[in-house]
């Protein structure tokens, strides 16, 4: 046990990733969001990307608070608008890696239109969607993913709406990377986020997560530990699974895995292509030609690879 | 201060708005006048009668819309039907000779008729109708100089059609001068 909090903060592997001065956070006991943030932090570290060039954007809600806790450039936007804000920041400075970290109510309810259009454009963003089947911050109302028959404060007699299957939605809208994990699958999640950070295009990662205070309690599903055990027992790993087969029942099995990974020009690549055709090779965006930007990107990629190699070597050494 | 109010009208696709744009640009950029151009937008401006208005003055135009046009160019029957009543006594009425059937001889108006579409077709495409009409308008109204009008064309007609548009303009212009030489307004009887 550690008694010196200052020392703990300093020694914690999360220092440099979390705004330690803002800890402890506001999330409930047994909530999965913290575990996801661990996975995210680990993925960022292993990815080798320059933390200075990473931006985290959140919407509103419990998961919306992630932006406020991570020690990167971060924006806590209005409800549902994380993706368009992230779009703006990415397009304003294409060198940045932009991650949207928000909840399913925020991203697929009020912000649903933005999600499908960013996916359609193959906007170069990583979207991590915490799906806990409820609006937590406002007291446990039904969301677009709440399974049929589940109880929420606004479906007190059971949910009679049809829920979204988010991987299917993202896939249908044009996302080029789609995966689903649970907050218990922190290792797989870390790997998925790492892959998403390293690639170009619209990546959508759904993370099924327990809302202990509201969803679990109201539906008599036990506590966080019970739910994580449930995730352990009732998930089926199916990489490449047809996203039409990823619907979630109230008590059925949950399909997890990496469902989609494909290459398609991103929005900015499409802009470049069109503009070079129009203006010629000296076409510039924000004063830089395409070859100039490509050279910079290549150089940065090499630095990223070197940093990543160093992290992995250090890890290997530690495990010797 | 002299202020002229001009209405260009016809059916959609005849290049009516373009006529007003070219004239407005010519006046305000090359003829040292003030010109304000307005047009109707929205569903009512699609198809049917299409119109653009130009207020021309030696001083800054304040009220941007026309109150009573002194000149009406009507390149379609519908446009003529709709707008000719606005003209005051002595107003200038320019109509497309083949497309507009007149209701009367308009004895109290200065009536000018131009076979713009026919001339345009002779030049190869009826798309040049508006430029023929504009050349004619320039000659008969003397609101704007032909020089300014020709300078205003680049940027307002596609580059590859600039020459032929100029020819269309000149064709109309010459026809106008000819008509003026014959003794001002034509009287229809």
């Amino acid at each position, binding site marked *: 046990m550690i008694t010196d909090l200052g020392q703990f903060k300093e020694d914690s592997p999360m220092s440099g990733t979390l705004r330690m001065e803002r800890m402890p956070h506001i999330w409930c006991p047994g909530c999965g969001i913290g575990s996801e943030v661990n996975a995210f932090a680990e993925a960022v570290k292993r990815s080798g990307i320059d933390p200075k060039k990473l931006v985290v954007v959140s919407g509103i809600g419990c998961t919306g608070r992630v932006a406020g806790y991570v020690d990167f450039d971060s924006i806590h936007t209005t409800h549902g608008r994380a*993706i368009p804000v992230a779009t703006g920041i990415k*397009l304003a400075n294409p060198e940045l890696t932009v991650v949207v970290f928000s909840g399913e109510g925020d991203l697929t309810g009020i912000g649903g239109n*933005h999600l499908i259009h960013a996916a359609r454009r193959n906007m170069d963003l990583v979207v991590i969607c915490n799906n806990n089947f409820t609006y937590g911050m406002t007291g446990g109302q039904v969301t677009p993913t709440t399974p049929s028959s589940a109880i929420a404060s606004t479906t007190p007699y059971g949910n009679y709406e049809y829920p979204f299957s988010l991987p299917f939605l993202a896939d249908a809208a044009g996302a080029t990377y789609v995966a689903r994990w649970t907050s218990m699958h922190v290792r797989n999640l870390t790997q998925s986020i790492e892959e998403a950070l390293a690639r170009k295009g619209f990546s959508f990662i759904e993370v099924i997560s327990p809302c202990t205070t509201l969803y679990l309690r109201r539906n008599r599903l036990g506590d966080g530990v019970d739910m994580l055990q449930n995730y352990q027992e009732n998930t089926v790993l199916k990489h490449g699974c047809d996203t039409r087969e990823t619907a979630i029942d109230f008590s059925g099995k949950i399909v997890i895995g990496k469902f989609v990974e494909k290459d398609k020009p991103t929005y900015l690549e499409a802009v470049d292509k069109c503009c070079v055709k129009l203006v010629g090779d000296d076409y510039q965006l924000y004063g830089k030609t395409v070859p100039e930007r490509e050279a910079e990107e290549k150089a940065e990629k090499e630095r990223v690879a070197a940093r990543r190699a160093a992290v992995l070597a250090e890890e290997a050494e530690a495990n010797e | 201060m002299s202020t002229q109010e001009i209405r260009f009208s016809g059916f959609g696709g005849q290049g009516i708005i373009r006529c007003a744009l070219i004239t407005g640009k010519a006046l305000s950029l090359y003829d040292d006048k003030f010109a304000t151009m307005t047009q109707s937008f929205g569903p009512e401006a699609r198809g049917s009668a299409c119109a653009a208005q130009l207020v021309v003055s030696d001083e800054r135009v304040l009220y941007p819309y026309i109150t009573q046009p002194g000149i009406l160019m009507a390149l379609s029957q519908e446009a003529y039907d709709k707008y000719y009543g606005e003209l005051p006594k002595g107003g200038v009425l320019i109509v497309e000779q083949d497309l507009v059937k007149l209701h009367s001889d308009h004895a109290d108006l200065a009536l000018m008729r131009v076979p713009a579409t026919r001339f345009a077709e002779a030049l190869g495409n009826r798309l040049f109708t508006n430029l023929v009409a504009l050349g004619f308008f320039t000659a008969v109204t003397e609101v704007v100089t032909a020089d300014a009008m020709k300078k205003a064309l680049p940027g307002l007609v596609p580059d590859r059609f600039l020459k032929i548009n100029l020819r269309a303009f000149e064709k109309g212009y010459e026809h106008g001068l000819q008509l003026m030489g014959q003794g001002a307004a034509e009287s229809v009887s």
Partner: protein
Amino acid sequence: MNFVSADPRGVDAGPHFMDGDHALAEGALAAGCRFFAGYPITPSTEAAERFAERAPEVGALFIQMEDELASIAALIGAAWGGKKVMTVTCGPGFSLMVENIGLAVMTETPLVIANVQRGGPSTGLPTLTAQQDMMQAKWGPHGDNAIIALSPDSPQECFDLAIEAFNLSEFYRVPVIILTDETVGHMHEKVVIPPADQIQVVPRNNYSGPKEDFRPYKFDGQGGHPMTQAGDGYNFHITGLVHDERGYPVMTPEQGKTVVTHLMEKINGNADKIVRLAEDQVDGADVVVVSYGITSRIAVKAIQDARNEGIKVGSLRLITIWPFCETRIRELAGKVKAIVVPEINYGQMVLEVERCAAGKCEVISVNHCGGAVHDPEVILDAIRKASK
């Protein structure tokens, strides 16, 4: 304010015959705007089209977003990504943007929105003119907040005020709204764009000191505080919640007061520096016509006629609508018999004028519910009545 010459890439110098919407886009490009996100809506669309057309040659980026909510959100992102940003819309779209105008006010994000007003409420009169959004421009977002609004009366002024809007927006880190209307937006006139070295722009003021001293905010009721851009290593955090100077949420009434007071005072407390008016024969006048935008041009016609009848009438044209020219109206109210307020709405500015006049002179509203400009005769009648 620090000025530099405009980047010549964005300046299409020379005389043009263009409409107000196009001039807005040209003004934005000249001011250094390099990011535009928007959604088509009559009568503002031409500005978006112009920006889209010019973006590749200028090296700017245009994106048509899925709706107005997304457009303004993208602007906030792009502003913190380091760019000067703009969108255009009109009433119905502005209504959708209101949410994130509030966020921009709260996060002190510089951005420019042109609202090319059309008749309302709701879908209203999409292709016809109005000035019905004056109050919405200020009171649209919930909560107390202050913005700056400017109103051009011609395409030339659309260009000029677009540059001014960016300059004010950069300095005060506040959304600036260009409140124009269908008539000015669609009206073609001569617009002279000066060469780049004659255009003064306020560059983005980014912090460059030590990281530990970096504060995205300073609640001193003043403008000029530096911001930062993503990627510079300062790890900024911004939120729509009430926050401290680091940007971290602090949800107490005391902090709420600190933040709101700053946001209001930054604009209202500097009204004397921000407000621009165009006055004509106001001193010694019996009657003053207070108007803005297209209505001020219509009013001049009435004013000239009134002067020909021997009435001593002055014109006060608001170039800056918000903050409202409170001081000037108070002064005038003690000196003139009456103030005549023509506006293309059911009576919005007149409420402000009445408030400032505080009963010291008569205030006559000449309203017109939208869809058209006034008949100058109606304004003339009001001036005649006011002079008696």
